């Protein structure tokens, strides 16, 4: 008896309609794509650069490049994955060219942190987190991130900060899932050394 293989249905791209219209020259459709993806892409680039001004300039360049390259987007991946790849690559190239470490230019921490479950739990258990101000905590976390290599910082940003699964990260970076997992493991080890005092109860 022949067993039929389950057919894996690819999730339809939520942006397919907007992309098709944008390719036809509908600039309003492309604007909608920009509005839809700016916040997430901002988070990606900002956490890789720790600099608000650089993030702003890079984001403008990323969308400009996506607009110019849109005609050659084949739809083999989702638009989201495609523009994410562009963003990671352009940010990594920017960081390589930025020869000396730029001073951090940090965004404000929104008030939502006080309601964050992890924050509440950690401040109740770990004295060092309770004792420092939020500003100081933010500075320490950013300093620790900037000590990582660019590639390690990219995977930590996507996995830990943005909550992306390993499979999605591997597609964006064009590496295997195993590589993503090993980079994360190594990065976490590094961060444990940099942030050792924040782990002591």
């Amino acid at each position: 008896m022949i067993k039929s293989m389950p057919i894996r249905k690819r999730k339809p791209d939520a942006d397919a309609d907007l992309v098709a219209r944008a390719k036809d020259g509908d600039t309003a459709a492309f604007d909608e794509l920009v509005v839809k993806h700016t916040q997430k892409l901002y988070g990606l680039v900002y956490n890789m650069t720790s600099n608000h001004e650089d993030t702003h300039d890079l984001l403008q360049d990323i969308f400009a490049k996506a607009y110019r390259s849109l005609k050659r987007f084949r739809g083999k991946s989702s638009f989201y994955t495609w523009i994410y790849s562009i963003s990671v690559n352009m940010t990594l190239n920017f960081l390589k060219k930025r020869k000396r470490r730029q001073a951090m230019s940090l965004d404000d921490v929104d008030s939502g942190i006080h309601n964050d479950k992890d924050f509440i739990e950690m401040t109740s258990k770990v004295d060092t987190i309770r004792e420092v101000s939020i500003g100081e905590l933010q500075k320490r976390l950013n300093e620790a991130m900037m000590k990582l290599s660019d590639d390690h910082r990219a995977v930590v940003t996507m996995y830990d900060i943005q909550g992306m699964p390993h499979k999605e990260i591997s597609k964006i970076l064009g590496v295997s899932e195993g590589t993503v997992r090993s980079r994360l493991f190594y990065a976490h080890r590094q961060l444990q050394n940099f942030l050792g005092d924040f782990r002591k109860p």
Partner: protein
Amino acid sequence: MSEENEISRLIRLKRHERPSEDYFEGFVKEFHSRQRSELLRGSTRGIFFERLATYTADFGGSRMLAGAGLACVAGIAVLVIRAGSTEVANAPTADGSMDRSMPFRVQPEKPLPLPEEIMPYPTDIYPAGVQKVNKEGDLLLLREF
């Protein structure tokens, strides 16, 4: 709770770092403004090379082939331009002599002597640049050849 998990949770707090909502509302406007100024500012050559880079970026494994093809086209263009300038350089100079610095192509013909009716007076008496006497016996300054 594992140490790795703790670190993950700590780093995750960074998602609360973000600009104000006003920033995102103004972002699209600034995007349009930048695109317009880029179009006005960008040189034709700069835009050409950028388009070329974007076009060749997707060739992947055929990138070498594309590069080789472009090199061939450039080489052919150089040869065509040099061939054209060589023909011009080997044309005889104004005094009929050959420019020996260029490769030999064609020997110009010696200029033919003017017929006697055009030159009524013998010129061997009067070297070029010296006076000549016309029919009326007036002195004329010969044009220097």
